[in-house]
């Protein structure tokens, strides 16, 4: 059962920060609440104040201007991302990742900002944001900052956010070249499940291939060792090396979902398949 708590709605960015500071350690920002309420219900969190950020101007919706990249309001629901034409066509990997979260009903509530602030190692949007080199725009008591996503997560459920600081926008730079992304997620079921292993792979026309993994380390991770192997070569052997390097980088745990050994083997399998599919997709979109 949910214990009672105060619900306050922030009217502005400053208001949100002030309310959070005022609420102290028993306060928490609220977006979709799909992770938060489960924890509160289970008594893992006993919160006194929830500060709803959804009414803050600009925190919901997407903007994409040529040359400026994509800016996503942190409280945008995952279904807004899935349904957005720009994201589907230009940042398809992010749409795939967002679509793989929970169920349709959950995605109506769950926000992209919440997905990353919850900082689950298995957060589905995180590997996608990692390969797009996203930056996290935050507002807090000490001002606003832009944090590269690669520096955002510090451990399971942990981020660099300070008390009173919230995620306002997620900024994705304009890719210099044509790209094709693939998100592969291995769950027990084909929907409404957490990842056992997930892999995001973005192949760029520049020749660069970016790879990130979910659910196999304390945080979602980029696997630069694997990426560098593919810089010069993209033959079968190189792909196998890269997949093997990804497996080397992964440090998964055994839990009720899957064993460590299985996860490691699956990192290799999924990485290999993701690279192959991303390269093939890139090649196919290049043909006119």
């Amino acid at each position: 059962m949910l214990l009672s708590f105060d619900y306050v709605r922030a009217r502005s960015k400053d208001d949100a920060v002030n309310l959070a500071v005022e609420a102290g350690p028993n306060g928490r920002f609220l977006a979709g609440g799909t992770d938060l309420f489960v924890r509160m219900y289970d008594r893992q969190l006993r919160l006194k104040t929830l500060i709803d950020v959804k009414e803050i101007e600009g925190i919901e919706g997407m903007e994409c201007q040529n040359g400026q990249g994509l800016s996503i309001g942190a409280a945008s629901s995952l279904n807004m991302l899935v349904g957005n034409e720009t994201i589907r066509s230009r940042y398809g990997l992010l749409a795939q990742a967002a679509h793989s979260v929970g169920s349709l009903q959950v995605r109506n509530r769950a926000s992209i900002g919440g997905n990353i602030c919850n900082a689950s190692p298995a957060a589905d949007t995180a590997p996608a944001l990692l390969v797009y080199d996203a930056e996290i725009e935050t507002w807090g008591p000490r001002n606003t900052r832009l944090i590269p996503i690669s520096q955002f997560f510090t451990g399971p459920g942990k981020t660099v956010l300070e008390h009173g600081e919230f995620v306002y926008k997620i900024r994705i730079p304009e890719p210099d070249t044509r790209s094709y992304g693939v998100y592969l997620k291995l769950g027990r079921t084909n929907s409404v499940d957490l990842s056992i292993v997930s892999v995001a792979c973005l192949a760029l026309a520049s020749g660069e291939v970016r790879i990130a993994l979910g659910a196999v380390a304390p945080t979602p991770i980029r696997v630069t060792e694997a990426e560098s192997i593919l810089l010069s070569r993209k033959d079968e052997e190189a792909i196998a090396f890269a997949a093997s390097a990804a497996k080397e980088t992964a440090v998964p745990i055994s839990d009720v979902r899957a064993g460590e050994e299985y996860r490691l083997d699956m990192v290799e399998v999924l990485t290999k398949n993701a690279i192959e599919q991303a390269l093939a997709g890139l090649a196919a979109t290049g043909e006119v």
Partner: protein
Amino acid sequence: MAREDYIGVGVIRNDAVEKVTGAARYAADLKFSGMLYAKLLRSEHAHARIRRIDTTKAQNVPGVKAVVTGKDFPNRMGLYLKDRTPYAIDKVRYYGEPVAGIAAESLEIAEEALKFIEVEYEELPPVLDLREAIKPGAPLVHPDLHTYEIGPAFFPIPHTNISNHFRIRKGDVEKGFAEADLIFEDEYYVPHIQHSPIEPHAAIALYDRQGKLTIWACSQSPFAMRNILANSLNWPMNRVRVIAPYVGGGFGGKAGLNVEATLVPLALKCRNSPIKLVCTREEEFRDTFVRQGMLCRLKTGVKANGRIIAQEFEMYWDGGAFTEYGVNVTRAAGYSSSGVYDIPNMKTDSYCVYTNKPVGGPLRGFGHSENHWAMEQQIDQIAHKMGIDPVEFRRINLQRDGSRNATGQVLSNPGIGQCLERTAELIGWEEVSGPGVIEPGVKKVRAKGIACMTKAPAMPNDAASSAVVKLNDDGTVSLSIGAQELGQGAFTVLAQILAHELGVRYEDIKIQPIDTDYSAYEWQTVASRITYSCGRAVKAAAKDARRQVLAHGARYFGVPVEDIEIAESRVFVKSKPDRSVPIGTFSLGVTLPDFSGYGGPVIGRGTFIPEGITAMNEETGQSEKPVANWTYGTQAVEIELDVETGKIRVLKVAAVYDAGRVINPVTAATQVEGGVVQGISIGLLEEMKFNEEGKLLNPSYVDYKILTAADMPDELLISFVEVPQEDGPYGARGIGEHVMVPTPPAIANALYNAAGIRMKTLPMTSEKVYWALKERLSASVR
């Protein structure tokens, strides 16, 4: 004017609009003024002595109305074996067992007050492993087992953890094995699983000023619940009343008496205050009935010509902390232990074993999903070993007209042969000549697998049904039954039978929600028995009402009764059909031309009890008619195996069942669809995982996975065979449970045909399949 034929017609379900619009009310929806809320303090040890409970502080929390512990209600209760009390007394037997209950003015207060109950435990060695539990000298979960009251068909072994030992001794099994050309032996295991109904258990209990106890509950068994409660209270039955609205999915989990019992001592302390309990999803997983785990050893002797000549079957059931209901699962799995095959010499031992795990009980299939998991894989294993196609090997051994099953019962024209042939045809069966081999570089392989099943209603020999049909003034009809609508479509099918038999419009029939004070008696809505058993009662009640209407009509029209007919809710003279009146004309009797009255209100009554079922011999399990009937079926699947991840996808399922006579082809097909989906889910995903202390690790859908819409097969081919059931209504017999039974072994058999790996432990998760594949591939390299 013709009599409307409603049999074999896919009418729209009579609960459809209510349920689709959200108007249907379930137990958890009910509210009363002055209602109190209950919360239970549950054990955090699997096995421990309770040294001290102090509820004083909790009692003093403002808003708390009552706190109870085991000592407040020491009477044992249970359906077949009285081994259970609502709250633990002196010791706890599973992690989650109720230790104390609180009734308070709000749920918040009840939950907060739980913290103020002080319990001091002394831990005892938990009995968590089946193999350990049956060893001599194992700690006893129920040291007093020998003192418990138990039904006549059950045989506990005193001073052990075995609460039932069921035996089959048929023919000469030693001689059979001596004559066998091939003897094949293997072990199989199924884990604990949950029913996963949409609606969690909910109940409200009220002990009123008249001294009557009323329970509103989501129940498959309002009458059995009344029986168990009155018995344990030692009260006359008319002081206990159970009211049961629609059930939002049961699957066996809402049979018998369950969490409702915990409200009784609270209600007795809070006279005139209704007390409500709604299980959390976590409680639903662990603290209602679960399906028992089962470990078995199966040994089969076969002649060179492919005929099975002997079978030895040992089943050990992980019955959990209380086996009041579970003992009958082990009995049912025992007497059906020949499966669909004709085996002349048999020895079966089915043991129900107490462990410190959640309470085992009925779950759709009732032991048959478990024993068929073993039997139907064993058949395939032997077929492969002998180089015979699995379908052909089944053909050789199937029960036929005149075959004797495990209990020695002579079978009359079983429909399994037809089911097998049609299933093979639907799936496009091609001869299988050996294990699947995965060529290097191949990422996905496909194969087909098949499995058969049979099951009888597992119920007491005298499980009865009854029905009362009342004509209302306007000619609409009220049907009073004690059978429950769980989503399976019982109300629809029973209304069809009534409409057909009485000659009224289906739309004009309303079925009353169950109230044991007013509804006609029904044993329980379990065992796939409602269409068969209650169907017969409704048919008889309809006939009785019809007889009365015809007599009224004859008197009214002044013609012989043979010249009167009823159709589409009108009564008419057959020889002069224009002489017709609405059936409502006679609802309350007949008004004659001189305005005098005759007869009286039309009330039809009907009852049914399956006849001639005799007890099985204690030593041998033999009986000429041990059960009401046998339903047969076959399923085949086509799977695609992802070789790289071990993930199985079921692409296509063919399912054929002998329903005797299909009353409603739409509801029958949806039952099969649901069963197949549940079967795939159990086959691939479902497992309750416990740690070394007996704590359930996955009590929610986060980590107890069930099949989702995205995992559905692409194609489901459903068909019915109709070999009439002699005593079924229009020849019908039940299929509700059967349809989930053969899916897991069919998938396992397909997996072997695809990749040469054999999974003997459920579920067939990607991870397990992956390691089995790796092992196979490395073995073939060596």
